[in-house]
């Protein structure tokens, strides 16, 4: 067996994840307390027995590169195969950014060409799911097509968010539309493609001249459909594209259900991640903790209800954290309230501050489409001063400090931006 080459697209900008994905690529966004979104795809790969993985980066890769490193947590730090990062680069012919998902591969055609693998598996690093790709590969080989696409049923009201495939009785894709306004199918492409490697090289070479922004969903799939049969592989498990602040929040809260669709406690499929060696969580005095997921190294003396706490979070006495997501090392001081918030890493909430207290429920002024359902998002390293009140649908920039808060109360829908957070990008 010549193995299979995996290409994970991790370069996308998650602009609808607001401040959570401004300073990091979307796959590097922390999720479910101790994981990053990329962990799910990487875990799937190694549990499927695929150990040659290329990561195509672009947007703010530092955090992702730091997390994945040489791939040790996934046993990918190996001599043959393992993890390789394919960053956009300068070459003798000039240099350019990856114009689209497929253009990223066009610019690394030499990697595809020198490979000896029969197939190339293309994945997105943005998705949360547990899938054994071996079954997909088997279906692809039995089907004999040049391309097999992983598809999943989505609710009809959301079909316009996805690439939608119509299939015939034997699972052949008859039509593919990217984000259609109206459609007759509710089978969405999962962004999981198995190509016959030579067919992929051929189609990329054919299309590249006309499409500097070559995209799998927009260009490559329709072109493959014109050239020959394309098969679908229907996946029946949990799959989630964490695209927006709301879907991130909802997915986090769903983990707290008694039977969550995403079971992290499955002994056959523990998600692998880069762990920090932290002490166990310490719970002091009689406090109430209900329906919550709490990671290592937390110290809790206050109240935690319906929340997901990352490693090292401290909730002091008399503080209350409810229906919120707190990433690594957040600190909630005495008597503070954090309600329906997402706090990025190392946010510090001063004593008796109140976050997520509604007034008129106005949508966010800067990101009205993203922050409209009452969630307040705070960027990493922000410091909320004591006694500060912050409304709903607010956005607080990373590294914001007490000097940035002009009023005791931040009205609903406020976007608090600071200069500090944004390095000059020329």
């Amino acid at each position, binding site marked *: 067996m010549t193995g299979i080459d995996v290409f994970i697209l991790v370069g996308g900008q998650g602009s609808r994840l607001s401040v959570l994905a401004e300073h990091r690529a979307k796959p590097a966004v922390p999720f479910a307390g101790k994981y990053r979104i990329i962990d799910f795809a990487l875990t799937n790969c190694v549990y499927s027995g695929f150990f040659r993985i290329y990561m195509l980066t672009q947007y703010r890769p530092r955090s992702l590169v730091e997390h994945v490193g040489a791939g040790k947590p996934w046993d990918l730090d190996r001599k043959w195969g393992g993890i390789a990062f394919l960053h956009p680069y300068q070459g003798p012919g000039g240099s350019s950014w990856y114009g689209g998902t497929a253009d990223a591969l066009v610019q690394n055609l030499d990697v595809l060409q020198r490979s000896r693998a029969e197939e190339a598996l293309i994945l997105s690093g943005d998705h949360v799911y547990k899938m054994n790709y071996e079954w997909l590969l088997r279906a692809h080989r039995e089907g004999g097509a040049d391309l097999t696409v992983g598809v999943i049923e989505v609710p009809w009201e959301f079909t316009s968010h996805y690439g939608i495939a119509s299939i015939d009785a034997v699972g052949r894709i008859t039509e593919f539309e990217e984000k259609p306004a109206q459609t007759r199918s509710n089978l969405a492409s999962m962004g999981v493609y198995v190509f016959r490697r030579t067919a992929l090289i051929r189609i990329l070479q054919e299309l590249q001249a006309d499409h500097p922004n070559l995209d799998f969903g927009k260009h490559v799939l329709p072109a493959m459909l014109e050239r020959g049969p394309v098969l679908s592989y229907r996946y029946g498990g949990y799959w989630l594209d964490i695209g927006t602040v709301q879907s991130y929040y909802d997915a986090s809260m769903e983990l707290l259900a008694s039977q969550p669709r995403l079971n992290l406690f499955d002994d056959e499929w523990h998600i692998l991640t880069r762990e920090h060696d932290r002490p166990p969580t*310490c719970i002091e005095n009689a406090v109430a903790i209900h329906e919550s997921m709490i990671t290592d190294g937390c110290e809790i003396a206050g109240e935690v209800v319906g929340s997901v706490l990352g490693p090292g979070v401290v909730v002091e006495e008399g503080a209350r954290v409810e229906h919120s997501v707190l990433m690594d090392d957040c600190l909630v001081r005495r008597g503070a309230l954090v309600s329906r918030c997402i706090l990025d890493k190392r946010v510090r909430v001063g004593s008796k501050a109140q976050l997520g207290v509604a007034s008129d429920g106005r949508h966010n002024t800067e990101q009205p489409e993203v922050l409209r359902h009452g969630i307040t998002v705070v960027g990493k390293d922000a410091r909320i001063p004591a006694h500060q009140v912050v409304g709903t649908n607010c956005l607080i920039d990373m590294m914001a400090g007490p000097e940035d808060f002009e009023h005791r109360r931040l009205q609903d829908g406020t976007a608090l931006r600071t200069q500090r957070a944004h390095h000059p990008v020329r």
Partner: protein
Amino acid sequence: VANSVIANGCRVYGRVERSILFPGVLVGEGSVVRDSILFSGANVYRNAQVLRCILDKRVVIGDGAVLGSTEPLTAELGSTPDSEASVRTQEGLTVVGRNTRIPSGFHSRRPTMIDSYLDEDAVRASVAVASGDRR
């Protein structure tokens, strides 16, 4: 949950007080774990009570079982050390060896030491043995 140290992968649906939970411990709905130490992978099912116990790895406590007591030691609870095993448990601790499965509804409030690798029947068969003895 109060005054406890809890490691990763634990699922707590019941109450935990003054206890130390190693990784992957399950405390089911309605159960109480108090003044106890539960090693990795110990499973306390529903409505059970684990009081002043040390449960070794992968011990299973069946539904509604009651193990140990947090009451002060009395003659009734067997405070007189009368065997080698009870010398070790005279502080009122109940110790359960690894992989042992305590059956549903099992009651043992006295300090006890229960051997490793016992299944439900083996534990039940030893109910009659006096407290403090090695079961």
